[in-house]
């Protein structure tokens, strides 16, 4: 009887949805930038792709999803304003932000008792994100994991014990630097230098000169995002550093930088070269929809995963901000983990995904492949 009633209600719900009694679009925010950044635009594109696919399949009980896109330029203070605007626009959740700094800057807005809007970052890896609030989640590992993974790889696979960290002096760079330094030192390694550089004017010449004089590094950790990372990589190459250069997820996409990127190790949760049917379908759909778009990286794949994760949560828990947040928080806790392109997503109590498997890729002939021992 109860089951029948539920079935009846369900049918009724479908009928109402079908009749279009409530076809108001469900708004999902996307906050990130700068949009001309080669790692940022694919994230936006994959969000659009996933939403188009979901709407084509009938949306959420007949209600279409609509993306509200606001660009924060990758700036922390701009991210605060973007977050406020997104909250005011009535979105039920925000995908973003891309960087740790912007994500951390925007998190208090989303977690404010007045707002309480779910925020899921595809790529903010700072350890601080873990404590950013109950409404802040991410589907990527934190720098603690990346730093740990990098330290582990250097010691176990590359078997090197002295190295320097060149880091972009922002939350991301500092995060990677700190966790790597800690993990590497703990397991017996020596970090000879930690050298900050500016995101806007990444000048590392003096550091490289010093490193050349002291011969203090067998490897370099380049804790930077792709844009400044590419410039710093060029400077390193120019100085003729021969040791392995390793980066975190920020260096995702370095494989597209031509010979410059050859041999660079990148820790990531997603390798576009992954040869699975789902990945192939994803890549071809992306290429079909955005023929001229930048190639997808892990943050693009993670964004795609986030949209589908949100859809599942809305179908399961409802479309209010609170319902959505609780349904998302349940993933991997009371609900099964979400299986996406980046792996099996299961949130812990901090909204982190500590179970997510980090892979080491290496650029070989312009492609990021699974790294083997040297």
């Amino acid at each position, binding site marked *: 009887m109860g089951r029948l009633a539920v079935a009846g209600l369900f049918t009724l719900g479908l009928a109402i949805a079908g009749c279009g009694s409530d076809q108001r679009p469900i708004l999902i925010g996307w906050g990130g930038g700068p949009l001309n950044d080669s790692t940022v635009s694919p994230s936006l594109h994959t969000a659009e792709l996933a939403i188009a696919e979901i709407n084509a399949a009938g949306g959420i009980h007949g209600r279409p999803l609509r993306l509200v896109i606001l660009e924060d330029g990758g*700036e*922390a*203070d701009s991210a*605060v*304003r973007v977050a*406020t605007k997104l909250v005011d626009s009535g979105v039920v959740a925000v995908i973003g932000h891309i960087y740790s*700094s912007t994500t*951390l*800057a925007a998190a*208090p*807005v989303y977690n404010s008792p007045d707002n309480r809007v779910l925020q899921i970052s595809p790529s903010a890896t700072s350890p*601080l994100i873990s404590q950013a609030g109950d409404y802040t989640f991410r589907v990527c590992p934190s720098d603690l994991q990346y730093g740990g993974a990098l330290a582990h790889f250097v010691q176990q696979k590359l078997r090197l014990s002295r190295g320097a960290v060149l880091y972009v*002096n*922002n*939350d991301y760079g*500092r995060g990677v630097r*700190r966790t790597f330094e800690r993990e590497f030192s703990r397991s017996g390694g020596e970090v000879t230098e*930690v*050298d*900050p*550089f*500016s995101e806007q004017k990444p*000048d590392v010449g*003096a*550091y490289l*000169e*010093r490193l050349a*004089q002291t011969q203090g590094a067998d490897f370099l950790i380049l804790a930077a995002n792709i844009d400044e990372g590419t410039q710093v990589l060029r400077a390193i190459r120019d100085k003729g550093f021969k040791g392995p250069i390793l980066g975190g997820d920020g260096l995702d996409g370095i494989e597209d930088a031509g010979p410059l990127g050859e041999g660079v190790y990148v820790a990531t949760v997603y390798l576009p070269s992954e040869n699975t049917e789902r990945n192939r379908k994803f890549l071809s759909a992306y290429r079909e929809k955005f023929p001229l778009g930048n190639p997808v990286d892990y943050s693009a794949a993670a964004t795609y995963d986030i949209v589908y994760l949100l859809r599942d949560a809305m179908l399961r828990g409802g479309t209010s901000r609170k319902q959505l947040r609780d349904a998302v928080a349940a993933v991997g806790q009371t609900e099964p983990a979400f299986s996406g392109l980046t792996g099996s997503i299961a949130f812990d109590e901090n909204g982190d995904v500590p179970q997510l498997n980090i892979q080491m890729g290496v650029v070989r002939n312009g492609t990021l492949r699974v790294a083997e021992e040297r």
Partner: protein
Amino acid sequence: MLSGLTQRITFAMILLLTLVAFIGWLSVTSIRSQGDTADRELRALADEGDVGSELVASVMSEIRAAQQYLLTPSLAVRYDFISSGDSAYTAQRRFGDLGSLSDDDRVILNRIAERQAELEVAYATAHALADIGRPDAALAQARDAHEPADSLIAMVRRLTSDQARLSVQRADAMRQRSRRTQVILIGAIILIMAAGALTVYYTRSSVNVPLRRLVGAAERFGAGDLRPVQLGDMPTELNLLAMTLDSTGARLRTVVSEVIKEAEQIGSSAGEFSAMSQELAASGNEISTAMVKVSTSAESQVRGMDKAGKALGELRQAASTTGEAANRVVQVGENIRRVAAQHQGDVDAARRTLLDVREVVRASMGQVRQLAQLSASITAFIDLIKQISSQTNLLALNAAIEAARAGEQGRGFAVVAEEVRNLADSSARAAEEVTKTVQILLNQVRETSTTMEVGSGKVEGIEHVAEAAARGLQEIALAVKEIQSAAAQVEEEATLNRTIVDELTTTTSQAATAASEHATSSESVTAAAEQQNAATEEMAAAASELLAGANRLTALVADFRT
């Protein structure tokens, strides 16, 4: 809805308690929330102070370490520089976590981080330049750091001063909140007091007013005004009392009106009673009258007794006359026998003549038989006389007994009665004598008749005898005539005697009745009179008591108004 007093009071109490509980809750909540707020604010202020000073200190220490490295480069100073920088970032983050920051503050905070990063890059580069032996470039680079350092310090100061200002504002807000809470609490307390006062007033009025009405009604009843009262609306509990009072009044009214009716009845009864007493007095008079009558009747009795005496004297006389007549009849019979003996020869001689007159004799014989029959009637008469005298004797005896019963007053009458008895005895004896004489006469008549029958045969054909017989017979006829007249006289006397005796009987019976009446009535009248007197007194006393009681009762109930 709330008709019962208990219900009203309970409702009011619940209302009050609810209000008090509400106020209590409000107070506790507001005090707790204020405490929480104050606590939070204080902690926030402390945190802000800590974080602010930590931020300032770490920034300063970072800059100092950076400058120091330029003068005396060492790994320790470089790490000091790096770790101070990290501390500054931590302080910024903690600052950002404070929650009291505006978006502008956050932007400033982000700028601070950017400036710090800029400064760090500049100094780190300068350090590297110094390390690789380019001190001039290092100094130039370090100078580049001055601008962000100044800006950083200015921003940090601004942020902390902003926070200090904000603290003052927050304290003001807190004060205002507490004042508002105070106003609300005071208002609520006033409300409670008003509700309490209202409840007290309402309770008092809902108890007192009906109670006063009840008391008024009770006092009215007490004063004797038993007319029904309108008590109006009452609480359930008092309504019971009112109903009881009402029914009590109704019952009292009934009782009192009945009592009044009874009193009136008793009054009228008492009136009737006194009337009866008067009647009783009147009947006392009647009794005296009756007593007079009794004495009168006693007199008449005495007269009746006298009359009886006279009558009885006459009777005695008549009896003696009868005796004389009877004696004369005997003498006449002897004369007849002598004449018959004298004229026997004549008769023999005259027997033939007598034969002729045989028929006459036979006729005479018929007449003699008739005479015998007459004598028999005299005997019957004498029996009657005897009977009368016997009855008279009995009557006299009775009269004597009655007279004895009558006591002193009947004593004279007893003598009379004795005389009457003696008279009756004499009369009886006389009658006995007459009977004897008549018997003898009768025997002689029979003898004569027999003789005549014998002689009738013998006188046949004797003319002389007939003549003598005729003469004898004439004499006989004469004697018989005399006997006849004597008999008539006796008869007359006897008739008279009967009348007298009748009269005597009547008189004596009257006397007896009168005496009896007299005796009876005298005794019973005396007893009755005594009894009556006592009863009359009692009755008079009772009547007066009754009257007094009736009067008291009337006076008593006169106060009641029904």
